[in-house]
Every structure is written in C-alpha cells, then in structure tokens.
C-alpha cells in the first residue's frame, strides 16, 4: 500500500485537489520513497508514523 493509499484509508474524505494544495506527497526519485513534504490541511491532523506503519 502506498503512502497515498494509507492516507486515503485514514481520511477517506480527502479529495484529489487536497493533494495539490494543502497536502503534498513527494518522491524525489532518490530511492527513499514517498514522503509527506507538506501538510497544511485546515482540519485534519498530519498522520503519525504509527498510523502510517
């Protein structure tokens, strides 16, 4: 399951546009994988490592 899928499972109310504006998942193609580069959602808390494990 990708990071995006984990976050969508945690917060199913998130829409595509949220991942363009208030949330930015990123992969720098450096072998380190996907990560949360920005989380500025007005109501939903940034997931913890435990939630994403």
């Amino acid at each position: 399951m990708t990071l995006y899928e984990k976050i969508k499972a945690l917060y199913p109310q998130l829409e595509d546009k949220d991942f363009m504006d208030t949330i930015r998942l990123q992969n720098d193609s450096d072998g380190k994988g996907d990560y949360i580069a920005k989380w500025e959602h007005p109501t939903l808390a940034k997931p913890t490592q435990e939630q994403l494990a």
Partner: protein
Amino acid sequence: MSQVIIAGDTSGTITLQAPAVSGSTTLTLPAATGTVMVSGNMPAFSAYANNSQTISAGTFTKVQVNTEEFDTNSNYDNATNYRFTPTVAGYYQVNGQTNATSTSTLTRIIPAIYKNGSGYKYGTDITATDARSSVSSLVYLNGSTDYIEYYVLLSGTGTLSTAITAVLDNYFQAAMIRSA
C-alpha cells in the same frame, strides 16, 4: 540603415560599424547597462526520459529525465539528480511535458517545475485517460546555487506510469532568454 557590418582585425578587435552610405549611418545601442549575451554564454538544454517510470498516485514525483538531446554548458545532471543548475545568472524559459498511462484508469496529470526543491509552477491540470500535459514558465536562476527539476503528479487506479514515447512527449528543457 540597410545592413550592419561586423569587421575584425588582426589585433583581435571586432568592430560593429554602420555602413558608410547616404542616409542614416548611426548605430545606436541602448543606454541600459548590462551584459551582452551571445549564444556561447547562454546555457540551454533539452532532455527526454528514455524509460517508463512508475509513479505512486497523488504523489509529486521527480521524473528521471535521463537522455540529453543537447546541453550547451554541461549544466544538466541527467544521471543522479536530474536537475538543471546553470552557471550563468538570468531568466530562463523552462518547459516540461509528460505523457502518462495506467493499467486501469488514469484520471489526472499535473506536471510541475520545482525550484530549489520546492514546487514553483504547475502546468495544465489534465483530467483524462491516457493523456499528456505540459508546463511552461519563466524562472530566475542565480547562476550558482539555484536549480530546477521536473516533477509530475498522476492520479487514478492501477499502476500509473509515464509512457515510453519518451523523445516525443516526456521531456524537460530550459534555455536562457536574458541575463540577470
């Protein structure tokens, strides 16, 4: 003035002179200060991604644009960081395009120019299946530490990836258009 003559001599001096003909023979250069740019000191590159790259949905991913068509000043890293770090300060025209596909359904493509590791400009937000989208922007780069990279966000189901028609529509380019 009907023509401009560029004349060189054996001392290495090149003189730009107006022809001695009747009428206007005055060549006027603008009073603005700055550096005269010629093709030899204006970096430009063009590269394409010579492979298909799998991308996680909803995730801005750096596109590994790995095959150079030209790189006039050796400022584009096509092997490790896939970034353009020009050594001449100025304003650059930057272009990028991605053709993407999915094993199931592709619903969105957003290409993006990144500057110094952060999103700088988004391209056209395409919401279609098996489509392409591009981004174009002017970017100031300081000629030392500033760099640009090309990212893309895909959405949909199934395995999402950039398509293999790379030389035609998975590319990243930049060219200096004026000095700082």
